[in-house]
């Protein structure tokens, strides 16, 4: 419960302004808390009079012995013959966390025929690879992968488990966290660890990136987090690094599945995952059709990037849904995002505003996209985009 000390409250209204949920109103010179309060605590920090505090009910979880849990783990995601690039990024940040805390870093690699990947994981920073190589793991199935991870975590007790915020990571990890009674933070963009007690400080965007929140799991282990691709930097692979491979036998019962994968379709158009590239060129309503998207595609190719789109372009059928960026599409954070003919409604902005550099090309100088752009070009995209592609090509020569 959020409690207001009416003696201390001066009715200044700072908490009312601070609350992102509209849960506080000042009535008769005193703050009143409504039903929409989520106990996020931002008002408590903002209150200069010290009139607000969060009163917790007795928690039933103070009994976990945190010291029993040690080490940093990374879920190594393997699909269609390759380890997902995000795995190496996670080993990069995991290495830093492990060194700060003075504990080992391990990768857990479930799959079939994945033995050959262990060395690369060690070169990327892992001290230990827990290898689970079984034909039953050839295809991703929620229940089997979930049980294997849960079983290993219960057995080896890592204090932190990191996974990519990919289709697979976001599907399997919540299941594991639920059964372990562990805290899980989705889509972290920043991770730090307090060396003294091992608390993982997990920072993530909330409200589509309009605010950032730092989250902790004070009483539970492991502390679990998913991290978006391209947010963390991988280490330079070091083939001289040494590490240990621990092959784990899994109880056959855990490998039985209720899920049957009948077919796996790799789509030509989707081979480039827009969440994993460094440059995106995106088209919106202003691109006007498939012909316009050909220009977008040419520019993307010139830049070695991929094509993204706004919801308007996807709904018009000019490009398929996996390319959609925004609230009902994907969230991306490339180094460079070039928005062409996209007005920049907040539904789109929330999916791309964490890009390092945003370039907006739009006819309408008042379009909201210019409010979030690093660089803005006011003009006709049908003129600007080909010109930009041409000049970049010339530059390369």
């Amino acid at each position: 419960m959020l409690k207001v000390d009416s003696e201390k409250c001066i009715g200044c209204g700072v908490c009312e302004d601070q609350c992102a949920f509209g849960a506080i109103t000042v009535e008769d010179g005193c703050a009143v808390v409504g039903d929409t309060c989520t106990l996020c605590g931002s008002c408590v920090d903002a209150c200069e009079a010290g009139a607000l505090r969060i009163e917790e009910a007795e928690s039933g979880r103070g009994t976990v012995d945190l010291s029993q849990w040690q080490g940093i783990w990374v879920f190594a995601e393997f699909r269609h013959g390759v380890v997902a690039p995000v795995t190496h990024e996670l080993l990069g940040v995991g290495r830093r966390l492990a060194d700060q805390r003075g504990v080992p870093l391990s990768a857990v690699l479930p799959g079939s025929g994945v033995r050959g990947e262990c060395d690369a994981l060690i070169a990327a920073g892992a001290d230990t690879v827990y290898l689970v190589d079984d034909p039953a793991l050839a295809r991703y199935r929620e229940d089997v992968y979930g049980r294997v991870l849960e079983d290993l975590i219960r057995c080896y007790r890592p204090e932190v488990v990191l996974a990519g915020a990919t289709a697979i990571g976001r599907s399997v990890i919540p299941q594991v966290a639920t059964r372990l009674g562990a805290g899980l933070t989705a889509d972290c963009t920043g991770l730090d660890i307090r060396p003294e007690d091992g608390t993982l400080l997990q920072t993530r965007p909330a409200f589509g990136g309009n605010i950032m929140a730092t989250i902790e799991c004070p009483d539970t282990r492991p502390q679990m987090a998913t991290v978006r691709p391209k947010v963390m930097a991988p280490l330079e692979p070091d083939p001289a690094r040494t590490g240990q491979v621990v092959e784990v036998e899994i109880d056959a019962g855990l490998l039985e599945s209720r899920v049957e994968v009948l077919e796996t379709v790799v789509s030509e158009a989707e081979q480039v995952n827009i969440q994993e590239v460094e440059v995106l060129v995106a088209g919106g309503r202003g691109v006007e059709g498939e012909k316009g998207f050909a220009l977008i595609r040419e520019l993307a190719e010139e830049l070695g990037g991929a094509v993204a789109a706004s919801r308007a372009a996807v709904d018009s059928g000019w490009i398929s849904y996996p390319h959609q960026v925004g609230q009902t599409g994907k969230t991306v954070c490339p180094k460079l995002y070039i928005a062409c003919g996209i007005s920049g409604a907040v539904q789109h902005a929330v999916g791309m505003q964490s890009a390092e550099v945003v370039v907006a090309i739009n006819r309408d100088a008042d379009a909201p996209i210019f409010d979030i752009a690093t660089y803005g070009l006011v003009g006709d995209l049908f003129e600007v985009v080909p010109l930009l592609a041409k000049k970049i090509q010339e530059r390369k020569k």
Partner: protein
Amino acid sequence: MELLVCIKQVPDAKDVRLDPKTNTLARDGVESIMNPFDRHALEEAVRIREEQGGTVTALSMGPPQAEEVLREAIACGADRGVLVSDRAFAGADTWATSYTLARAIETLGSFDLILCGKQAIDGDTAQVGPGLASRMNLPYVTCVQKRRQVDDTGIEVERMMDDGYDVVRLPLPALLTVVKDINEPRVPSLKGKMKARKAEIPVLSAADIGAEKECIGLAGSPTRVVNVFSPEPRGDRKIFTGTAEEQVDQLIEHLRDYL
């Protein structure tokens, strides 16, 4: 077929705007809407009922005003709406939320298929669907983009992956989370709206669902938000002027490090 859809009431993003000067959230006049992904889950449930018969129950956890989205769900084809609401649920993270929803569903009866949106647009975690499935020990599939087939024994769907899709078959009962590609939701009919207006929306409290105190609300949440802050504003912003060529030249100059 007994179908249940989980629905969340969320702030309408089009009203949530960032004040570019102060970089804080401007939330004046923010309206609440049905989470867009849940709308697709509801539509799919209604379509399955239309093909197979049965009932569609819409379930929401939230403050008393979340009743509005349940009425809207009825207007869009749900047979009934049930609200789980209690001040004791405040501060629930996804762990406590999946617990609460699971207890509520078990209180309501048994269902052949539970549908959820892929994620809610205010939290974007995509954790409650899989969490709910594991609490109820149901097989599940996330990010379903197409339903191929469903009958009493099982369901065959396409699961969207990062590089294409998988075709997956599950026995029933099961849980699915859906993306917006799965269907085009209908607009409420006049008849549906009238039904929605008259509908009784039962409210279940923590006691009604037999929830254990230490598993709900803030006390039941392993995660704690310890700090909320505004992201750093973008430095060095520039809107170029001049002819298209002049603007492109300036851009290339500024983008040197990225080309």
